[in-house]
């Protein structure tokens, strides 16, 4: 068995068939199926998300202590960094923890990308290929062919600027809400770059991938923002001002 066959058997085909079945359940709307799948993926990855949110919450609660440390060791950056890392360690907090739920979702993104390209069958070859990947469930076969339009989006086409801006914007908000304060100016600079670069890159990538995948990212980000808002009780670090700015 090749890697491709194993991939399809374990991840690719299940995602494709669930997506097509959801589409049939939701009045044949492929866009709604993508949104429903996003919710399902978010539910499955809830333990990881919860861990990340706990971490964010803990960081928020640590703010007075962090500020104390900043006052105390403001002139000795090395010592400040050491003390803050110690504080994070004691609280069991990983400042980069927010990236793990995203990394875990990569296989889903790839499978979803493939599923959208397969399911919308833009060429006769891909429509024929779809026959070999669908399960023999009635609900799946009755859904074919799928509607590719949803809320003005052609889910199989790329290059939609509005969805790219939504993906980039929501990603920026979500990152800002969860990003722990940096422990030194260098990390602060890296974090600032990441907070800007990641949404920009994803916005750019969104222009090149099918709008269906972009819809998944946008909805996933919005769900993330909502969960974070209610779990941490507010906008988190969205309005947080870096203490290092004054020292620069």
């Amino acid at each position, binding site marked *: 068995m090749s890697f*491709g066959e194993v991939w399809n058997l374990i991840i690719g085909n299940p995602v494709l068939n669930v997506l097509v079945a959801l589409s049939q359940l939701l009045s044949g709307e492929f866009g709604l199926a993508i949104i429903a799948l996003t919710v399902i993926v978010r539910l499955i990855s809830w333990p990881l998300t919860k861990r990340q949110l706990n971490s964010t919450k803990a960081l928020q609660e640590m703010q007075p202590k962090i500020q104390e440390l900043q006052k105390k060791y403001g002139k000795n950056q090395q010592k400040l960094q050491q003390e803050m890392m110690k504080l994070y360690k004691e609280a069991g907090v990983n400042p*980069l923890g927010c*990236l793990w739920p*995203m*990394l875990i979702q*990569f296989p889903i*993104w*790839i499978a979803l*990308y*493939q599923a959208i*390209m*397969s399911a919308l069958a*833009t*060429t*006769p*070859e*891909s*429509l*024929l*290929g779809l*026959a*070999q990947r669908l399960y*023999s469930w*009635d609900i799946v*076969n*009755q859904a*074919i*062919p799928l*509607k*590719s*339009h949803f809320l003005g989006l*052609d889910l199989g*086409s*790329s290059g939609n600027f509005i969805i790219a801006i939504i993906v980039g914007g929501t990603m920026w908000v979500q990152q800002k809400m969860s990003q722990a304060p940096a422990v030194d100016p*260098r*990390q602060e600079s*890296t974090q600032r770059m*990441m907070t800007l*670069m*990641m949404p920009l*890159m994803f916005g750019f*990538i969104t222009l*090149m*991938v*099918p709008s269906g995948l972009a819809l998944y990212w946008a909805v996933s980000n919005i769900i993330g923002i909502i969960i974070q808002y209610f779990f941490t009780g507010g906008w988190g670090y969205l309005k947080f001002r870096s203490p290092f700015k004054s020292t620069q």
Partner: protein
Amino acid sequence: MKQPKILLLVVVALLPLTLVSCISGYTQLAKGWSGTTVHEGIIYVGTMDGRVVSINSSTENLEWSYSTAPVTAPSSGLSCGQTSAPTAIYGTPVVDRDIVYIGTYSGQVLALNMLARSQNLTFPQQRYGEWEWDCPIDNAKSNAIVAALLVRGDAIYLSSSNGRVYSLDKEFGDLNWESKVLDETHRKLWTSPVIQGNTLYFSAYDGHIYALSIETGELLDWSFESETGFASSPVIYGDTIFVGSFDRYLYAVKIGSDVPMWKFPQEEPAGNWFWASPVVNEDIVYAGCLDGRIYAIEAKTGGKLWAFNAGNPIVSSPVLVDNLLIVTDESGTVYVFDLSAELGDEAVPLKTISIGADVRSSFSAQEGLVYIRGEDNQLYVVDIDRGGVSWKVDLTEKEE
């Protein structure tokens, strides 16, 4: 140390997407699966490098070839740049007197004169009756012509991926009429129409069989509606339309009726779609299925007469020659059934011949020879009596 770590994460994040896209396994390019036509000893076929070729079946030599204009391959996903690609050809060439008609995936209909092409004159030579017609995109995603053209009387009928059906003047390529049939959500029309009397019938992915006037293109009152889209082109036998569906049933629909006469299989659905158009002869429907089976079905009742499991999907429509039913499966095995013999419930083929290449295109058969274009872009001529490939020719253009 933090900065390289984060950058590494970004690289890790983007690499899978880039790889998946560049491999392009899921953004399949349209390569085409043109079928073969044999006319007065000459074989006509579309190639995978976007040419229409004619090959003399006696000498096995190329008579002429015409290269369609290449297209710019659309960027798909994070694809690594745009490239020029040959135009895909899915339809089978149609020969009418000295003109070969073909539709292309780039939305063109070409009328090629055999004499002009054999002299390699600049296309189109109007004095030889050549013309080309560009299908409008009409705000659709594509104007691709996938289904075979239908030539009847003085007109050519075709369906396009823009959801419209067209009638062209056969002699000059002028538009007779166009009919907007499908809405925005189900634009693709990849099935060929059929004609009975003055009515043109076609099956669509939106689950309808539509009827149009061949004179005006006007939609007629009757249409048949199914819950699922139709996968195959329809076939008419008597007053009944036979068509395969995505719900894994073959439908028999009496023209004018709102309910199907029967659905096959009668109990559980088949193992996959009925993708290929069935053929009907002497009240028996022969239908190939992507579940790997060929079924013989009683046309009036929908009862199963016999079946044969090829083990591989049957993509191409079966062909009937005299008493022989010829079937190919996707793996390139040709099965020949003697219909004059008693076949029982589980039919046994008279001959089983492998060409050694995948087959998705329609094929033709004449005088004991079967002409098949393989997915390796080779033309195979199978001799039924000898039980093997008689000769083959590579259709890929040789660089001079």
